[in-house]
């Protein structure tokens, strides 16, 4: 069988299974919602200053949504960066680029396989976090109907569906973070620098959003797109923030991905 992108993809997933950082990120994705539910249990009330914060004691389905809001600050960018920032840089660290570049795969195929693997990891982390939050939240506060942002009551099964669609919409800015992580991984050739750098990019963009005089930029900041899923929780559904998230995130992600691709394709493998 001729090797291709899917060969690389499968082996990247295998390699992830053997690396500690994979479990560090996924562990955080599991632990954070559990800790959040435990804190809610003892506090008997949720954070009132965020959407759905005041509902978490009435419906467990509000808990994954609140975690999505809090996770946007650094948790999900960090979990995403743990793999995206490492996936090329670790090859430099191990000196293995020369090993895989001298087999029968084109560099472009290797790049695509790695990109798919980093994206898969991010998707798994978000869905895992959301699922744990749904289960833990439902145990704590019950599998109850949820009040939408428009004030209407959404049945529990419908709310569950909306939670999962929200997780998918949340993946749009996460995909942009993956691309930035891949770019930094490719450029810096240093895992720690790429992981921290990706997180810093995410934080700096959030800081720009709160600087006085720059509020006009808010709709076009990557950090804002982490709230796009809220359009799904309105009646009727507001698609505008979701559509905007798609193109704004594409503006952040695609140039980064293209630059990462070119760097990876053209680089000299002089070390290792």
């Amino acid at each position, binding site marked *: 069988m*001729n*090797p291709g992108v899917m060969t690389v993809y499968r082996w990247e997933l295998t390699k992830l299974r053997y690396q500690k950082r994979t479990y560090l990120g996924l562990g955080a994705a599991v632990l954070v919602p559990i800790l959040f539910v435990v804190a809610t249990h003892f506090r008997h009330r949720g954070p009132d200053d965020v959407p759905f914060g005041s509902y978490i004691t009435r419906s467990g389905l509000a808990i994954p949504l609140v975690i999505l809001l809090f996770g946007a600050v650094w948790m999900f960018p960090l979990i995403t960066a743990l793999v995206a920032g490492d996936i090329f840089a670790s090859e430099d660290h191990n*000196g293995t680029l*020369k*090993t895989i570049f001298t087999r029968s795969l084109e560099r472009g195929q290797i790049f695509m396989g790695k990109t798919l693997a980093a994206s898969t990891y991010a998707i798994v982390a978000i869905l895992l976090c959301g699922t744990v939050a749904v289960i833990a939240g439902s145990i704590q506060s019950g599998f109850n109907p949820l009040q939408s942002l428009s004030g209407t009551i959404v049945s529990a099964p419908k709310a569950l569906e909306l939670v999962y669609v929200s997780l998918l919409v949340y993946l749009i800015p996460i995909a942009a973070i993956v691309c930035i992580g891949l770019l930094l991984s490719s450029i810096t050739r240093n895992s720690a620098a790429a992981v921290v750098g990706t997180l810093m990019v995410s934080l700096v963009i959030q800081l720009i959003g709160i600087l006085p005089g720059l509020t006009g930029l808010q709709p076009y900041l990557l950090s804002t797109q982490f709230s796009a899923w809220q359009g799904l929780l309105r009646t009727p559904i507001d698609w505008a923030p979701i559509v905007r998230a798609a193109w704004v995130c594409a503006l952040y992600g695609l140039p980064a991905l293209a630059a990462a691709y070119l760097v990876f394709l053209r680089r000299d493998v*002089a070390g290792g």
Partner: protein
Amino acid sequence: MNPDALAPPPPIEVRGLVKRYGDLTAVAGVDLTVDVGDVYGYLGPNGAGKTTSLRMMLGLIRPTAGTVRLFGRDPMLSVDALNGVAGFVEAPTFYPYLNGRRNLELLAAFDGGDAPTRIDRALETVELADRARDRVGGYSHGMRQRLGIAAALLRNPKLLLLDEPATGLDPAGMRDMRVLIRRLADQGMTVLLSSHLLTEVEEVCNRVAIVRSGSIVYEGEIAALKRGAGTSYRLETTDDERALAVCRAQPGISDVRRQHDKISFVADEPAAAELSQALVEAGALIRAMAPQTVTLEDLFFSLTEGSGDPRATPPAQEQTAESVR
């Protein structure tokens, strides 16, 4: 019809290869040809540009100028040029968190075809079958070198490029590596072996390129290099200072060196006879003058440290096939 047009292209053909990093020229116009069946030594001191040349041959770095062809194909254009080619540059590298077998499975998957069916045999060839389930992170340097050979064998190569394969190995490991390379060559594999271990090269290679400061100063057969080198003599006299001056002034005498209370030089037989007469006339009486066996090491140092003495070259009539630069 030109018969050359029908001949298959050689395993390696390098022309005018140059690599510059800013002001530093790592490789300065290398030309070499490795023919089918050669075990070709690529010799040079550390920093001479051997590894950089090998990286360009494997398509890992882009040449500043010049061309590389592997079986007539350009490795910079497509990885297809590496079909039938395998090897490693510097130490072979693997994923330390995977075991040896798993690393080979990954590389075999990246090779495609029937490479996965060769894993067991490759592990047995390099005598790592019993350690294949251990994580590579726990392997010794020698084990990694052998795993590197195993990884190369998965591709069932017709051409093997090995960069310092014996470096860091203990004497037994070095011997085993030489035996392995010789065995692979006997099976019909063409091998390019970069090394600074001259005994290793002398033992396993039939042809060499000697590189100095990024340029090749000799390319050809080791036997021809030795034949062309003239004979090395060791001289002891009653007045070494005067003898040294006479040697340096005497035509036909080259590579004159003083080593403690002895003088060494390279000359052919008539030149040595004329020198003995000149020494007597100068008052430096000869205590002993004995021819020495020239080793590849002697020739290597004369080419890479000295002035690239022209005596250390093959005869003129052989310079069409084996060139001296």
